[in-house]
């Protein structure tokens, strides 16, 4: 009953093209933000932050990035893990080379470096499409992981071949390293998620997004109305890689603290983020969040049911998780190719008419 656009008259074009045209959605958005920033930090503990909140927030950024490239611009990429590694290693090199600069700036710069690398690997997209492009980005994935393993300069010649984040502070509070309070790492990631989501939403609802979607839906027609395919595809790669790089930097510096590239940023990571946007919904910012939340909570949820409740062995539950994810991917590809975001849209359509559907 509250969920109506009736009576909420738009008198200007900016009001009509805003992100949440329905008033109830706008209030909900502010409430969610307020709870996330002002309430949750006071109630979190290490377990919740590390098992749920941090991976959710960080994968959300990566999923938004991949969704811009694959969901909006239609360019399939299997190189997400590799680009996250670029972000992580760029952040590490910057942190160790310029210890006095604020870590937040390093994370943004790491995103910038990844954008440049991503654009370079996006160049083949001008010639090849679909499966063939996916394979080209797969090459990027393997090449980048190999590079970070092979060239010792990237991990500052450490004996283990790992990179580990030194302690850095923001406003006097540690946000990286072992002494970081849970709420601080949560807040840092939350700030980045909020800004990234805003940027992504603004880009996708405006001229830039239309350019990407035009290339996705019909590249010939896009060209004939004046879209430069070179520019459209490369900007998609750049923006997408920027987000993925930021998420990689946060994944390394704030979440894990120490990473070994093959383990943390292998091909599995590329597929995980791809599954997130398939389950969540291609071409939707909300879908990126939904997919990330779903695939982050699923293992925790299964463990809760399987191990703690039913007393099954841990390895069985771990394998079961792979089966469940596989089945879900198939289910979504067949039944709901637009993912959770589409289910959400349908629910909202229903809600607008409730309780008088006729």
């Amino acid at each position: 009953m509250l969920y109506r656009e009736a009576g909420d008259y738009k008198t200007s074009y900016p009001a009509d093209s805003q992100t949440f045209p329905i008033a109830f959605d706008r209030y909900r958005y502010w409430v969610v933000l307020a709870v996330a920033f002002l309430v949750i930090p006071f109630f979190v503990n290490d377990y919740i932050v590390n098992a749920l909140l941090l991976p959710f927030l960080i994968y959300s950024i990566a999923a938004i990035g991949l969704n811009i490239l694959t969901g909006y611009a239609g360019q399939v990429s299997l190189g997400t893990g590799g680009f996250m590694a670029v972000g992580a290693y760029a952040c590490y090199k910057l942190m160790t080379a310029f210890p006095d600069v604020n870590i937040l700036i390093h994370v943004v710069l790491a995103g910038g470096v990844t954008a440049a690398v991503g654009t370079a690997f996006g160049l083949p997209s001008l010639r090849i499409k679909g499966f063939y492009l996916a394979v080209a980005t797969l090459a990027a994935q393997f090449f980048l992981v190999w590079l970070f393993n092979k060239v010792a300069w990237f991990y500052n010649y450490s004996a283990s071949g790992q990179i580990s984040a030194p302690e850095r502070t923001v406003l006097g509070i540690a946000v990286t390293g072992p002494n970081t309070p849970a709420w601080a790492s949560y807040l840092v990631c939350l700030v980045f998620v909020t800004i990234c989501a805003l940027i992504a939403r603004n880009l996708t609802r405006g001229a830039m997004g239309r350019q990407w979607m035009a290339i996705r839906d019909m590249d010939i027609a896009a060209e004939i109305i004046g879209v430069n395919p070179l520019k459209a595809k490369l900007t998609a790669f750049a923006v997408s890689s920027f987000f993925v790089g930021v998420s990689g930097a946060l994944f390394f510096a704030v979440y894990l603290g120490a990473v070994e590239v093959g383990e943390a940023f292998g091909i599995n990571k590329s597929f995980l983020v791809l599954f997130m946007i398939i389950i969540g919904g291609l071409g939707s910012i909300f879908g990126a969040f939904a997919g990330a939340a779903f695939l982050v909570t699923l293992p925790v949820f299964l463990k809760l049911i399987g191990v703690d409740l039913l007393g099954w062995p841990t390895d069985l539950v771990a394998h079961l998780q792979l089966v469940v994810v596989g089945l879900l991917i198939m289910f979504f590809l067949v039944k709901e190719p637009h993912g959770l975001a589409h289910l959400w849209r349908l629910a909202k359509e229903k809600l607008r008419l409730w309780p008088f559907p006729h």
Partner: protein
Amino acid sequence: MNDRQTGYVTEDGRQIGDVMLDLRDITLRFGGVEAIKNISFDIREGEIRAIIGPNGAGKSSMLNVISGFYVPQDGSVWFHGKKRAPLKPYQVARQGIARTFQNIALFEGMTVLDNIMTGRLNYTKSGMIAQAIWKGKAEREETENREKVERVIDFLEIQAIRKTPVGRLPYGLKKRVELARALAAEPKLLLLDEPMAGMNVEEKEDMSRFILDVNDEFGTTIALIEHDMGVVMDLSDRVVVMDYGKKIGDGTPDEVRNNQAVIDAYLGVAHDE
């Protein structure tokens, strides 16, 4: 009447201006096949110019040459009195040439409004950073573009389907949305590739009215390919007739109608024993 230097006045009293697009000795080959053989014709400012001919005559190839998809092996395209270097389609679009396609080429995943808004992409000057922040110039541009687009939506009477995804629309409306997208670009020259293919009489009448109105209100020059002779003869000021890649006739509808070569091409020639 058809001298190359000055314009002319049509039967219904419209002043036709200078030559806008001049195609000189265009030859287009695909391997060994000559799709277009040494064709020259011009399109004048403000006129409605039809290209007709039997299937496979090379009409669509001609439009593709104009819009930059094909680069002819021989001949040159002159636009506004200047010889045009080989351009990419998006560069042609920036010169003020818009078009529609024979089989609809809309962006199926986007709403009608977003589809038409893509027609304004050439007028978007704000950078990526400005668009990411959605303030200042980017927001102003978006609103300006939306105003222009709403005018086109009003003009083509598609207000009610503004927010409908294009994939859900019936054929006739899709054709209209495609025209709207081309019009949103405010083209100087509008190329229509069979705008009435597959339509019933009513839809054809609607579309004819829109084409005449576009020409009349916006002063847009229009070149169209069409098979419906009644429509072509009623709408167009001058007609080019093509057959097997060659030009076999050029002139007013009346001249073309009485041209023996054209009659032969359409009705066939009796073979001598």
